[in-house]
């Protein structure tokens, strides 16, 4: 959800960064070497193979590096040798990169059997001993420079294929390619418009790496005397020097040193250029020396507060300077209290909670303020003291339990090592304590032996809670402990925390962006915005009388289950049925999970006998938890997926009868808007090109027509449409603006139906309603039908005419939105409503 964008796909890093400087130094060195190779005849008057002086002559003004055993000038040999090394290195790099790119594109884009065959071949080639292979091939096919280049190029492409293919697969599965395909684009269109521009910068580092290796290999071959005997390269100078054991005499200074240094320098220059592409070398943010934290005047522990944060300032340091993200926060957590800290992404709430535990990443640091934990000054405590406090008096329940557990250790081992911090126990007592802690969070004793990947998301979160609380801390900081879990599982975890809080007498600071969840349970809420706490108070008081505009915006953006609808229903669903726009008749769909052997690793029935109709102009909501089959329905309606059983009708026609052009025909009438506007818009395209894409897919080429339609669509999406805006890149847009651009791209071809797949779930609370308002205005003004896919039944109830509740591939309840919410018939629907 971050608004920050790190552009990794560029040829060179910016000149002001360390990486950029290093890359430029490499390019200068390489340029100097290339120039002296090209200008060799100007720099020396001797040909490299002419005998021009006494054998073994020592350096003189005429012969700067002296002469070899055959009386040939070594300086001239060095300069001309550069030509061979560079020529071999660069031509191998060109050939090999080209070969690798073609093979990677074929493998990555075709997938399936071709892909698997190619990748097995790559595995085999990677397994071969490289140097002996080059030697053997060179022997059988001759040692000329041309065969040498071919042979080295032939054995060097494999690692690059692996790398590039992975990138292609990533591009291919990216949301913007999926969006393009859903708009009816052909494979060719996607290749030219998206794949090539995205892939081009990734080829450069491969080129650099291959050139680097090729120069070393050529030098080694020539050194072994296996190079082209007619050519004079750096390696062959060393071969002769070695044969004459020049390094046992003083001659090494001018005979052995210079060519070796020349090779090293060339290779080093390539390594420096490659520096920016290699994540393993990327310089990390430099640490500043620890400075004492300034304590604000009058800071002292407050009675009644187990945790007290006073005038806390936190800054991030980057290569571009320092940036303060928390500006003087005051916050007290009272004994036994559940305090909710709410705010949107980037508000500083997670930074604040990590600062309390002194677990900020190295680039962030507290610059001012004080933190007291029951009279203990956390910011002045020694590292050892802090370690003793963590887990025993103040604990963390972190975000995303999958990543918080070490994948190679069992749950029991990870719980055990936390228990040990509270004091050593005899083995039996330790075992018993592990089991007891697992039971207390609703897990079973056998889970001690499980690895994290063997548990479900909810169970992992329980394990994390057990670990965090095993030493009975007084204060718990729960950082988004329910984010990423299914709606109903979130409720379970919340209930568990409330229960543990009562049993263990915990004081909890609950950090979340999920306002409805925390507002139901917290004693008090603190609203954070832009690095400060703008308001504190009881949830009900804040809801009724918010003093700060941000608090008001947050609460107003919450759709309620009771009260008036925010948007009126307008399709008259009770009247005589119009011919449906889309109809699913008894549709089933099963996905087979493949493992690498051909055997089926399991089946997953995504849809089971689903029937659904959508009338023109109707707003239908498809509601359910994760894995319910909502997105599968969207893809069936788009014609991206064919059903296994049953029929999908689009405007009365069976889509199976449309044949190969199914996707193109259906995309004329239907447009899909994706969940995540950070993924579905390609970062390298301007707003204009993004919005114009559906027109281009339909073959529109007239710039005037495109321009007029794009501007009209942007106006409909309530976006600016001046020249400055339409030439912007998505990086320069906020999340809400990006989603508006996605809707502009939808309306530019005036579809009859827009399928919106969780269109607001990646956006901050305050902009969600704006996007829904936009959808409503599009529905009303153009009579566009909407299929809203969401897990949020409250939101769907306000927007939709009708709802269909989906659970594990079946529709469990269907009807008018208000009827379903007010009188739910199904237990699952009731659970969803309770969780909303």
């Amino acid at each position, binding site marked *: 959800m971050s608004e920050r964008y790190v552009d990794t796909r560029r040829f060179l890093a910016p000149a002001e960064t360390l990486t950029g400087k290093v890359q430029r130094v490499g390019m200068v060195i390489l340029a100097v070497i290339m120039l002296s190779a090209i200008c060799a005849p100007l720099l020396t008057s001797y040909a490299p193979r002419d005998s021009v002086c006494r054998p073994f002559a020592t350096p003189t003004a005429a012969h700067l590096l002296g002469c070899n055993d055959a009386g040939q000038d070594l300086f001239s040999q060095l300069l001309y040798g550069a030509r061979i090394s560079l020529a071999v290195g660069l031509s191998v790099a060109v050939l090999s990169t080209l070969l690798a790119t073609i093979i990677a594109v074929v493998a990555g884009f075709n997938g399936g059997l071709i892909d698997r065959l190619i990748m097995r071949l790559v595995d085999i080639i990677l397994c071969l001993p490289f140097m002996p292979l080059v030697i053997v091939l060179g*022997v*059988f096919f001759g040692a000329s420079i041309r065969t040498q280049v071919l042979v080295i190029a032939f054995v060097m492409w494999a690692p690059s294929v692996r790398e590039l293919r992975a990138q292609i697969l990533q591009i291919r599965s990216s949301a913007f390619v999926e969006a393009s395909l859903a708009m009816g684009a052909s494979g060719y269109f996607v290749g030219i418009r998206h794949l090539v521009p995205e892939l081009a910068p990734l080829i450069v580092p491969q080129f650099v790496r291959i050139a680097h290796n090729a120069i070393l290999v050529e030098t080694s071959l020539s050194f072994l005397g296996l190079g082209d005997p007619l050519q004079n390269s750096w390696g062959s100078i060393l071969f002769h020097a*070695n044969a004459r054991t020049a390094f046992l005499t003083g001659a090494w200074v001018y005979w052995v040193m210079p060519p070796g240094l020349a090779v090293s320098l060339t290779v080093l220059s390539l390594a420096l250029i490659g520096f920016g592409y290699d994540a*393993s070398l990327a310089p990390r943010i430099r640490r500043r020396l620890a400075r004492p934290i300034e304590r604000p005047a009058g800071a002292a522990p407050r009675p009644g507060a187990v945790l007290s944060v006073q005038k806390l300032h936190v800054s991030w340091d980057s290569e571009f300077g320092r940036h303060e993200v928390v500006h003087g926060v005051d916050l007290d957590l009272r004994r036994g209290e559940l305090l909710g800290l709410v705010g949107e992404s980037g508000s500083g709430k997670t930074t604040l909670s990590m600062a309390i535990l002194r677990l900020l990443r190295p680039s962030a640091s507290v610059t001012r303020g004080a933190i007291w934990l029951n009279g203990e000054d956390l910011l002045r405590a020694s590292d050892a003291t802090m370690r003793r406090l963590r887990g025993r008096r103040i604990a963390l329940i972190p975000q995303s339990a999958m990543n918080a557990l070490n994948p*190679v250790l069992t749950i029991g081992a990870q719980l055990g090592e936390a228990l040990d911090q509270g004091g050593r126990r005899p083995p039996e007592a330790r075992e018993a304590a592990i089991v007891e802690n697992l039971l207390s969070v609703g897990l079973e004793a056998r889970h001690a032996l499980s690895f994290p990947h063997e548990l479900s998301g909810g169970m992992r979160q329980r394990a994390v809670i057990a*670990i965090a609380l095993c030493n009975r801390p007084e204060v718990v900081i729960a950082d988004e402990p329910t984010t990423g879990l299914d709606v109903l599982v979130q409720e379970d975890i919340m209930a568990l925390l409330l229960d543990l809080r009562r049993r263990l007498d915990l004081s909890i600071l609950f950090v979340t962006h999920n306002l409805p969840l925390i507002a139901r349970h917290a004693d008090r809420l603190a609203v954070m915005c832009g690095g400060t706490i703008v308001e504190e108070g009881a949830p009900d008081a804040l809801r009724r009388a918010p003093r700060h505009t941000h608090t008001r915006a947050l609460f107003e953006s919450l759709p309620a289950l009771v009260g008036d609808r925010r948007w009126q229903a307008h399709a008259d669903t009770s009247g005589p049925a119009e011919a449906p726009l889309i109809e699913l008749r008894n549709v089933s769909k099963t996905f087979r999970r493949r493992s690498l*052997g051909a055997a089926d690793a399991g089946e997953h029935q995504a849809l089971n006998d689903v029937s659904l109709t959508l009338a023109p102009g109707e707003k239908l909501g498809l509601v359910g938890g994760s894995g319910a089959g909502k997105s599968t329905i969207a893809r069936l309606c788009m014609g991206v997926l064919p059903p296994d059983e049953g029929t999908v009708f689009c405007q009365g026609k069976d889509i199976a009868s449309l044949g190969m052009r199914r996707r193109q025909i259906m995309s004329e009438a239907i447009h899909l808007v994706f969940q995540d506007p950070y993924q579905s818009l390609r970062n390298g395209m301007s707003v204009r090109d993004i919005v114009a894409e559906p027109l281009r897919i339909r073959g529109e080429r007239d710039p005037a027509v495109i321009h007029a339609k794009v501007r009209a669509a942007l106006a409909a999406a309530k976006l600016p449409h001046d020249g400055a805006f339409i030439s912007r890149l998505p990086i320069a847009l906020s999340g809400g603006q990006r989603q508006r651009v996605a809707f502009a791209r939808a309306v530019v071809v005036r579809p009859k139906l827009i399928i919106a797949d969780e269109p607001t779930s990646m956006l901050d609370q305050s902009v969600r309603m704006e996007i829904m308002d936009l959808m409503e205005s599009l529905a009303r003004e153009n009579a566009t039908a909407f299929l809203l896919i969401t897990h949020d039944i409250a939101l769907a109830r306000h927007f939709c005419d009708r709802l269909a509740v989906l659970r594990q591939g079946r529709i469990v309840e269907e009807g008018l939105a208000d009827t379903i919410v007010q009188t739910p018939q199904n237990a699952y629907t009731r659970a969803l409503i309770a969780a909303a």
Partner: protein
Amino acid sequence: MYYLRTALQYTVTLLVVLTANFLLPRLAPGNPINALLGSDVVENMTKDQIERIMEEFDLHLPLWQQYVHYLTSFIHGDLGNSIVLGMPVSQVLMQRLPWTLLLMGGALLFSTVVGSLLGAYSAWRRGRAADLATISGVLFVGSLPPFWLAMMLIILFSTTLQWLPSYGAYPIGTPSGSWAWYVGVAKRLVMPTLALGLVMAANVLLIARSATMMALDQDYVTFARAKGLSEQRIFFRHAFRNALLPLVTNVMMSIGSLVGGALVIETVFSYPGLGSLIVMAVNARDYNLLQGIFILVSLSVILANLAADLMYPLVDPRTAEGDPA
């Protein structure tokens, strides 16, 4: 399932290597016998002699029969006779292999220990002076051609300081197996190991550094800190151990390039391993010997990769059931 698939894949790899080795002289331009003996030799031979040699190499048979012959004799360990040395290739290889293995083993041990420890240390001190110095050193050492580094070592340790002998693998004239002999072998191992190991250590270091850094960045390390664990325990139990996983495969995978390095290094020190043998085979156009070396080296590299793949599930429980990728 995982083991079966791995075994199958390596069988295929081995077959590909064997087939390539079989086809190469037959695909090379001109009559295979020219490729096998060299055209200048063939020109001076009588028809009879040529036919006799054709028969000796099975070249009069149809291709598929030649292939079957080739495979069966490989299974029996028969790689033909070396022309220069006048003895079975398998016997020559067995004499030379131990020295190359000793050299590679030394270099592997040196580079893995030094590389992974320094890499992990560098990651721990990331962004500080020690880390930046290490990275600069790695960039520099990684750019040196190993054989040139070897020559520089000789200049330093043999010519200038006269500490270490620069020639061969064992002292000549000392009874083998005696104490002095072992000391001589060890002394002669130092420089080749360093020359080969330093460049490889630079690679290992980078992998170890980035893997450790990645592990240190994981949420489970933050959570381990929040549990109150000591930095040492976090580093060794949570970060370094997880960083070793990619290291194991990477080190095993790099054995292929290590062999190449060893071949070149041996030439500098006249080390009696496979490297000097391959150069001799090429210069003497002894193709049986050349192909024998290629097969042996490929086989060892394949076995090393197989070992890495089989070891992986033991260190990472996630691979045992699913796809390792």
